[in-house]
């Protein structure tokens, strides 16, 4: 192959890649863009002039009325619930993943298989039993009622992902720790755990997004509007026969923003986490 040919082929690749990158920018970004412009339109505009038209007179009144309508309250509830749930979830799945990835005992594989199987639970049938459990625990209609189900239902996939990561850590790290006199527990807390922090950031972002948008348990386990989380904030704008699309889009834009910010700051960690986790021994 001549140099000329190689150069032209590289150029072709570059053009192709650039075209693909641009195309996907539109595909991925366009719906978000429409959500954004719907939130700065008047209600009648969306139906009278279409979702895709540019706003005739951009306005922030929707944002003002959503924020006045108790958005902050829902937001704070969401932050508290998701923060605590994530903390418990990440710590308990890290501990369990270490056991599955690094300890040898007879029940290891059956137990891991069992946890993987739990990924298959359909959540809707669990609503009644979990609702009853919550009532019996006396925490129905408090934000604390959400933490248990949020941790439990995200555990299986988190353990699955994190076990995969820990599995790939080089054996030498552990052996060195043992020579230093660490028992298994100390090896976990002093060596594996710190090394897995980036991996834990990964599942934290994945599960965090899930919980942030979680709707079913939030609806069933809370009641008064004082204890509702963000995904239920759209209710105020969904009537029996019609809904106020502009305000709904405003709520959803506002709820997505913190996640975007978290992602921008977290994605570096996320990638590095996956890097560290996927290192081949």
């Amino acid at each position, binding site marked *: 192959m001549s140099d000329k040919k190689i150069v032209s082929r590289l150029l072709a690749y570059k053009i192709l890649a650039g075209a693909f990158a641009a195309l996907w920018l539109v595909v991925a970004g366009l719906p978000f863009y429409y959500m954004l412009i719907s939130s700065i339109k008047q209600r009648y505009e969306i139906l009278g002039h279409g979702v895709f038209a540019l706003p005739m007179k951009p306005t922030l009144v929707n944002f003002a009325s959503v924020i006045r309508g108790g958005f902050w309250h829902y937001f704070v509830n969401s932050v508290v619930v998701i923060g605590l749930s994530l903390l418990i979830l990440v710590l308990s799945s890290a501990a369990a993943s270490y056991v599955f990835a690094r300890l040898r005992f007879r029940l290891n594989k059956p137990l891991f298989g069992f946890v993987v199987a739990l990924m298959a639970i359909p959540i809707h049938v669990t609503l009644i039993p979990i609702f009853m459990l919550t009532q019996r625990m006396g925490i129905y209609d408090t934000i604390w009622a959400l933490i248990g189900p949020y941790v439990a*239902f995200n555990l299986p996939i988190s353990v699955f992902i994190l076990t*995969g990561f820990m599995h790939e850590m080089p054996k030498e790290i552990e052996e060195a720790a043992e020579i230093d006199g660490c028992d298994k527990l100390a090896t976990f807390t002093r060596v594996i755990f710190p090394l897995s922090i980036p991996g834990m950031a990964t599942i934290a972002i994945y599960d965090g997004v899930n919980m942030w948008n979680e709707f079913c348990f939030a609806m069933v386990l809370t009641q008064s509007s004082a204890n509702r989380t963000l995904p239920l904030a759209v209710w105020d704008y969904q009537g029996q026969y019609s809904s106020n699309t502009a305000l709904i889009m405003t709520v959803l834009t506002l709820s997505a923003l913190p996640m975007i910010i978290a992602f921008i700051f977290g994605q570096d960690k996320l990638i590095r986490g996956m890097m560290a986790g*996927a290192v081949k021994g």
Partner: protein
Amino acid sequence: MISASYTLGRDRQRSTRVTAVLLLAPAFFFIVVFLLVSIFNSIQLSAFDWNGADAVKEFVGLANWGALWGDERFGLALLNNLRIVAFSIATQLPIGMALALLLYKGGGRVTLLKVVYFLPMLMSSVAIGFLFRSIFDPEFGLFAPLARALSGTSPDFLGDPKIAIYSVIFVICWQFTPFYMIYFLAGLNTLPEDVHEAAIIDGASESRYFFSFALPMMRGILYNAIVMSMVGSLKYFDLVYVMTEGGPSGSTELMATYMYKNAFTIMKMGYGSTIATAMFAIVTAASLGTLWALKRNGRGESYE
């Protein structure tokens, strides 16, 4: 000497066992309290005829299971779920990989791209449902003018039973591709640079390097992705419920939407639980079976 090392081995084993119990305890606390209770409840209810309100549940043995066996709608739902599995694995994974490669080659210069590419994952199903219903609208939608210019009429993306399931799958794939993009990007970043250099020095092209070296080295990640995509597709609910409610003519019915309708809309809680239990069995068998098959195929490289 022999007996000493024997006790040492036993001590170590005991210490392993104690550590395992200690570290598994928090996770299993949540699993036992919240997940096991629910599964048992659902298995138990599947043997009853119950409208969800009566004080007395009528025991019917295996009658619900008999009904499920002959239920065409459930068969159709399962088929639709399998379609999602096939399309998800066939589109989300390769596109996710292509995007990952793009970002990998782009390095730090493409952070903005990365964020935009990740947006679909962050949007709530309510927003996605509304926006794509509008995008598919045959009168005011985004595709409508183009289609009318080409063929005179616009396809009925969500109203035609033959097309609707594919429209929905399109949106599902759109929503979840970013997750695999990020996941694979991490995998690419972990590949040792020396293998890359050696391959290129040996005269391999970039694409040959990717297919012959990079992909095989990312086997573990790929396997995990396949299993997660499969489980997610078999359990899927959200967007379908928002966009079509399983219609028209049941053409987008999924196991989860069918279960939900039975349990909560038409008040057949017993039958709904039967569907849920069947779903649980199917998804478990599929995920564990796939994991096992992939492991065997991978000669134990991903999970020993």
